[in-house]
């Protein structure tokens, strides 16, 4: 497959104009992860109220595919329960991206999903903020 196929309009657009970039002052969940081999690294923060994800934001930098992934997953999970969000599979993530992803770029495509899972999985919550 052509690598150029991966760089459809949506990906480039999300790279240049990312959704949900920033931070949440009183976030209830967060996690950070990097792809050490290529210099992608993000922190994703979530605000969860009564089990529902009310807000999600990401900070950091990465390649076009990982950045697009971060925009897409943070947008997707808003309004979902933690349980539903944790149920998002790798295949669904790739479908969100809507592009063919080569084996070499799979880590980039799935990075934000992994961070989301790390953040929302019960054992890894950040210090709770009283609500």
């Amino acid at each position: 497959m052509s690598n150029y196929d991966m760089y459809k309009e949506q990906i480039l657009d999300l790279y240049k104009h990312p959704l949900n970039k920033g931070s949440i002052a009183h976030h209830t969940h967060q996690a950070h992860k990097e792809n050490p081999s290529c210099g992608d690294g993000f922190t994703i923060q979530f605000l969860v109220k009564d089990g529902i994800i009310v807000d999600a934001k990401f900070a950091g930098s990465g390649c076009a595919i990982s950045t697009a992934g971060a925009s897409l997953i943070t947008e997707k999970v808003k309004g979902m329960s933690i349980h539903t969000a944790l149920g998002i599979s790798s295949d669904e993530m790739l479908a969100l991206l809507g592009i063919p992803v080569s084996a070499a770029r799979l880590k980039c495509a799935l990075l934000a999903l992994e961070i989301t899972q790390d953040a929302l999985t019960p054992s890894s919550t950040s210090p709770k903020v009283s609500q």
Partner: protein
Amino acid sequence: MITNERAAAFRSDFPLLTHNERLVYLDHAASSQKPKIVLSAMDSFYRSSYANVHRGLYKLSEDATTQFEFSRQKIAHFIGARSEEIIFTSGTTDGINKLALSILSLLPYGRRKILLTELEHHANIVPWQQFAKRHGFTIDFVRITNDFQLDMEDAKRKLDDSVALFAFSHVSNVLGTIQDVTKLCRMAKDKFIVTVVDGAQAVAHMPVDVYAIGCDFYVFSGHKLCGPTGIGVLYGRKQLLEKLPPFFYGGHMIQTVSKTDATWAGIPARFEAGTAPIVEAIGLAAAVGYLQTIGLDDIHSWEQQLSLYAREQLMTVKGLRFYCGPAHKCIGIISFTLDGVHAHDIASLLGNDSICVRAGHHCAMPLSTVIGVNSTARVSFHHETTTQMVDQLVDSLKKIVALFAGRQ
């Protein structure tokens, strides 16, 4: 002398490149392609000469041993050393790790500091960090200047009586800069500091003479030198090797073994436990011969000419920023970024045009932090790189810039 025509002709020495006409291989700093002469040396050894070495009393083994030791001699000569000063390892990383296991007793008594530099590869940082933790040492780093060279004033200041060991690279795998290794070793020697030089990026691109440099230890990998993977060299000055304790134990490195203890063999056997990378050594010697026939001075000169040309052409790419030293002080490595395009995307899209480059921090995270970029793209040249390849690189980069700017 290497001209562009001659460089183009070298391509036919490499089966992989011959069979992939469109491939533009610009990742020599990661690893080199292998010439026919290396492949056939290894293949024919396996087919006609192979036996385990050093211990067989039959002709096949004796001949294999002779060839193996002749390879060692050839490699020793390549860097201006003696045979017994050449220890075969599985690569640069392996060599440095092994040295870190044994070197404590060689260090000046009472000193508790290891000095590194900001431009080191992880292979020449992490083993020393672990050494420091094990033995209660501290680590300091010689800084780099704003134009990406090692700060010699800072080196002079930091090479003092508190330093036991100074480990630094001959050539930076990111910035391409050639350090003044002779001067640095002399400054260290004045203070009785043990020197370890990482030559992984140097030996394939310029002549190296370890006696002239005056270092105590010098390490490099075979696979970056047109040789096979799985072999490298740790050179140690004879007087030091004779005092160095072994790092790995087993067969060949012993003299006698009882139920309770063992005595050690002489050098370099003491440092080569187990079965050696026999065929890899044959391959490495063939690689060394291949490069010597071309001439390391000529290779160095060609890479510098090509670098100058490449820098000129790369300057025409909008938003390209260089992260490398001045051309005349470098080998053929150029690291760069493109505004608005992540290095990973650059490499991916260049790959689409059959251009092979590297992206990331190149196993030099501390350096990335110092120069202030997470990720750079890196191209690296060798004797078979041509100006046409540089032109193709530049054309592709311009396409990438256009794609990300929204014009295609």
